[in-house]
């Protein structure tokens, strides 16, 4: 293992396009152009919301996220109280400050306390013409799948009633194919990160991931294809003192990953609801099931959030990624008051200890760029990993 720092890549013009787009979110040029063409934009609050349904209705689904950087959350604190996670507070703050005033609808899920309260207060104080909250079961049983299918059906009917037209089957199929293409492109990107010297860093990957839920999928796929081409052609190669996996709560600030990589760690994979938990599993088309049921099954079976039971499903996937990406150590970043992940931590630490993988647990606020204290702890963690591998 070398001790060189990950190089900052200047040979990837498409990455720059992703960066520029993310820097102007929520009111990006791409979203504003969509709106100006007379089409609707819906915000979604959790990865269990089936985007394909919204997309098939001719609406642009985007993920509601908070401020790019850690910031004062005066409005968020006043409306949601300080013991809601800073992600929810940051999202609400942007909403209250009219940053999302272009939204025509908001869709949430009963996924965690933070997400459902964010939905409640959004509906009450911000308001958009359409609101819907889906019940999301916490199990993967056949009965749970049937319930979620009914929920997704109900959501589809509600949306159709609101729009005044039926979502056509062929449109739904097109959306499924488009989103699956996006997933397979992201998988191709992640496969590059399995290399001994990946051509893209963790921080750079985060820019791509953020863009994946903030822009029209058609455009995103085209940009990502360009980026994959650039990555194949450039001589980019990143190394680090240790190969790391980043897990835990929601994260959108690439500077946080940069802070880790600046210490010499190379983030080669992750388990975040803004990364693998968002894109990893495709919709599997089954001729014995309706398209909507295929979609609902994908969302409930997708890489699980810590809210799901049993937790071993999530833990086993993490272990699988550790092996596939040859991970030396895991960094868990949990946004304060993110209870599902906090509860899982003691059990996960035990599980990883059994396979000899150390875990560094960081309590963070959403949007943090990685403070000096975090950098010091990462530095110590990397030293420990180096000693371990000697």
């Amino acid at each position: 293992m070398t001790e060189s720092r990950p190089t900052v890549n200047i040979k990837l013009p498409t990455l720059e396009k992703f960066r520029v787009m993310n820097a102007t979110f929520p009111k990006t040029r791409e979203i504003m152009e969509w709106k100006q063409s007379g089409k609707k934009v819906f915000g979604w609050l959790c990865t269990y919301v089936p985007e394909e349904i919204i997309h098939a209705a001719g609406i642009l689904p985007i993920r509601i996220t908070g401020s790019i950087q850690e910031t004062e959350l005066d409005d968020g604190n006043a409306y949601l109280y300080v013991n809601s996670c800073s992600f929810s507070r940051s999202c609400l703050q942007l909403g209250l400050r009219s940053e999302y005033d272009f939204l025509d609808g908001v869709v949430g899920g009963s996924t965690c306390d933070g997400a459902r309260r964010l939905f409640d207060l959004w509906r009450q104080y911000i308001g958009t013409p359409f609101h819907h909250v889906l019940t999301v079961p916490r199990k993967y049983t056949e009965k749970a799948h049937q319930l979620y299918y009914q929920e997704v059906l109900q959501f589809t009917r509600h949306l159709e009633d609101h729009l005044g037209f039926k979502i056509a089957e062929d449109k739904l199929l097109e959306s499924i194919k488009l989103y699956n293409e996006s997933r397979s492109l992201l998988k191709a990107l992640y496969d590059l990160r399995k290399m001994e010297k990946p051509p893209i860093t963790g921080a750079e990957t985060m820019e791509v991931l953020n863009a994946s839920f903030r822009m029209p999928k058609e455009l995103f796929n085209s940009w990502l294809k360009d980026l994959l081409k650039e990555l194949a052609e450039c001589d980019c190669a990143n190394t680090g003192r240790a190969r790391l996996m980043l897990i835990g709560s929601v994260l959108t600030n690439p500077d946080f990953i940069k802070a880790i990589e600046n210490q010499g760690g190379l983030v080669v994979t992750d388990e975040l609801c803004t990364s693998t938990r968002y894109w990893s599993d495709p919709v599997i088309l089954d001729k014995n099931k309706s398209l909507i049921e295929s979609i609902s099954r994908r969302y409930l079976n997708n890489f699980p959030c810590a809210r799901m039971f049993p937790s071993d499903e999530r833990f086993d996937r993490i272990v699988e990624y550790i092996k596939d990406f040859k991970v030396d150590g895991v960094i868990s970043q949990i946004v304060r008051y993110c209870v599902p992940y906090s509860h899982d931590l003691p059990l996960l630490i035990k599980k990883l200890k059994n396979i000899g993988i150390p875990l560094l647990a960081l309590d963070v606020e959403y949007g943090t760029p990685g403070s000096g204290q975090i950098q010091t702890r990462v530095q110590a963690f990397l030293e420990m990993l180096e000693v371990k591998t000697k």
Partner: protein
Amino acid sequence: VTISKNDRIREIVHAIKIIMRMQKAQPGFRKSEEAYYRMLSNYFNRILEAAGKGDFIAAHTVFFPAEIIYAMGLVPMHTESTTWTISLFTGKCDDMVSKGIELGMASEICTPHRGLAGAYALGALPKPSVMVWSNMVCDNTAKSGELIMDMFDIPGFFLDRPFKDSRNEIEYFAGELQDMITFLEEQSGKKMDWKKLGETVAHLDKEIQLIREINELRKHVPTPFSPLGFLQLLTVDYLFPGQPESIEYLELLLEELHQAIKEGKGAVPKEQFRLMTLFLPPIYLMSFLDKISQKHGAVSVVEPFFTFWGEGRLDPTKPLESIARKSYMIPEARMYGPMDDRAINSIKQCAKEYKVDGAIYYADVGCRHSCATIKLFKDILNDMDIPVLTIDCDVVDETSITPGELGEKLDGFFELLEDR
């Protein structure tokens, strides 16, 4: 199964015995009070006895349908409320909470759950035979079971309760209940007594009806029910759902309230302020709160999330569907379901019908789902010209607020109400 010397259950039983003896010596000691403490004592004695004999104990989380455990002839142990009861009767929770942190539980996890895990790790509670839990009421309850299963290497069952109350969701939940019964049958070797479950549901329906009748009497001015008596109504459903002893207690209480109204007796010498209580006050300060309420003539007359049951009746011929429906009628279901117009209107209805002068919002710093609605409920009540006092506290952590601090806040609030 061994009982630790550090056993807090034994301490609870001992404390209840002393309280009962002291209360009995007081003039005007009510029969309902005696029935209440007796059933509380029986509850914890039953756990002690089961632990001693190695009988099957099913530990369960808050709002879990313990009526099923009772109907199977098994011994239930309510986890969160046991932590609260330890705090209430022994005042010793700090070591349990600290132990929870030592186990790796983040400080933002609420103290009842940190304390619970800590209590088990300390051996302060007997080892359960199984852990059964649900996602009612929050992420903490949903996530608490697996750690306890791991800690004791015991089997468990997670009961997935859907968010909304559509027909599909009620059917799903009834199916979950059936699966849970199968699990308990396999683990305990005991079969469900369906006749008994039907009777339990009939009792449950009666219990809810009695609470509704009691609530009606609480509308009376002056209100006849004690300032913080609502905690007893809450405990009835937490610990004794559908049990004959809860019916006995509620019937005695109802009779006493009728009598008090007939005699023109209020719960406090001079009723000054009729309050709405939002969420749980610090349990360890209950006697202090009682004194201050008596001093100011302040009485909690309605608690939308604890005692104000939703509409509907239960059908003993459809026990599982009824228990599933009950989970949506529970007052706190308003908090763990969608915060829609139906939930918001019930707050307005309570404020109006109970002639509320002010509301106290106990903002438990560990409770995310309740604190996130402080602003929302304040706005709703303020629009009705009802002032709201928010008190930052913790339900069991004694370091969160002292009696002095709490007294100062309440004195100030009552002065404000008086000025109005």
